[in-house]
């Protein structure tokens, strides 16, 4: 592994670019996600920023239960994101389907479609929780639980 590669890996943690995917959310999570861009929380101080193309993204933040029409989109957007990437399921719905879990047009949580690295539960989750979650995902903050999902990603 070359020096540049190592540097790149190190830099990865300091510069997470986020692409936001809405698979059918009620916009509650989306508004909370926007909150972290505001001066109060200011996600940019961690080098994070929202991008508008999955090609540039390092993290996919998926909010909402995966509805039937959006299944293809979720797969596509996952494919369109370059490695290394992390997938963050934002909110209860994205985690496991939320209150829509048995709805006829909902598949369920995001992990039924694509591997997920991180769940941020809450309906909606607080901005602090989102920040904390992302920080955990990239290893900026120590994890409190064992990352079982990480194994799933590798498989």
């Amino acid at each position, binding site marked *: 592994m070359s020096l540049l590669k190592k540097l790149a890996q190190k*830099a990865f943690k*300091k510069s997470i*670019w986020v692409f936001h995917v809405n698979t059918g959310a009620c916009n509650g999570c989306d508004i909370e996600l926007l909150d972290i861009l505001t001066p109060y929380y200011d996600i*940019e101080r*961690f080098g994070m920023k929202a991008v508008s*193309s999955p*090609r540039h993204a390092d993290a996919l933040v998926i909010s909402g239960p995966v509805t039937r029409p959006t299944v293809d989109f979720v797969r596509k957007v996952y494919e369109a994101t*370059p490695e*290394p990437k992390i997938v963050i399921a934002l909110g209860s719905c994205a985690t496991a389907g939320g209150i829509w879990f048995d709805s006829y047009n909902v598949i369920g949580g995001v992990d039924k479609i694509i591997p997920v690295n991180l769940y941020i539960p809450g309906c909606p989750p607080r901005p602090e929780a989102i920040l904390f979650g992302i920080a955990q995902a990239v290893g900026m903050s120590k994890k409190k639980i064992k990352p079982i999902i990480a194994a799933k990603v590798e498989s």
Partner: protein
Amino acid sequence: MNTSWIILSALINIFVVLFLSPFFDGFTRKVRALIQSRVGPPPLQSYYDILKLMGKEDLKSTINPLFRISPYLSVISIAMAALLIPITDFNPPFNFWGDIFLFIYIITVVGIAIIITASASENPFAYVGASRKMMLHLSVEPILAIALITGAINAGSFKIGDIVTWYYSNGPNVSMLLATVCVFLSLQALIGKIPFDVSEAEQEIAEGVLIELSGPKYACVKWANMSKQVLFCLVFSQIFIPWPMTENFLLNTIIALLKVTIIIFISTLIEALNPRLRIDQALKYNLTLAGFSITAIFLALLGV
């Protein structure tokens, strides 16, 4: 003017334009954050970004070979343009007659490289961006050309070095001041920042020309864009405001960096405080400015 001086000077130019440009970008972001009363990213953030992108996966959405080549071309041409800017001395490291035309064309090549990348990517958003970028380019390029030609007429030489020397020794006159003002007014458009960032409008066409790029290619284009900012600020500060200039090349470099910092600060202020223009508005603005700047030529002809 020996070979070693040329190499040293060239290295300094490359260093300033290419390798310091992420720092200046970081500076911009910091300033913008401060204006918006945020903390903002760390000053080296842009270096991290580029490094990170270097290590990322390189996605190929097309078999078009141009899609692979042209991002690198943009960096190459920026580097070449950097060699034509006087930083360490009145004379740039590569200094020959007629280089203002070469300079104008090389900065065009930067645009072409990005446009070809965009259009090779097969993405309609990228096409929109490419179209806008070209229009912006062809409306703003005449202003720089006219300003440089004004200098050339005044100095009686097509060398950038001679223009700077003449300007430094003779002091400003009306035509040069007018040209300077015009270049300043077009600086944002030259750099491609708000209010002239129509070709990469994130909210509107999803980064337009850059939408399909990823990994090292994206890093290159990002880097080229950052370097372009420094390059044009250097053009403005070194050619149109050459004061102060000393004998010592290190001191000159530091002065140049300081000037660039100030200009970038002003440019960031403009960027942070303005909304984006529509493409037709931008075109009209630029073409009006270009028409206005022709006055500078006539003034230069009259010798004032």
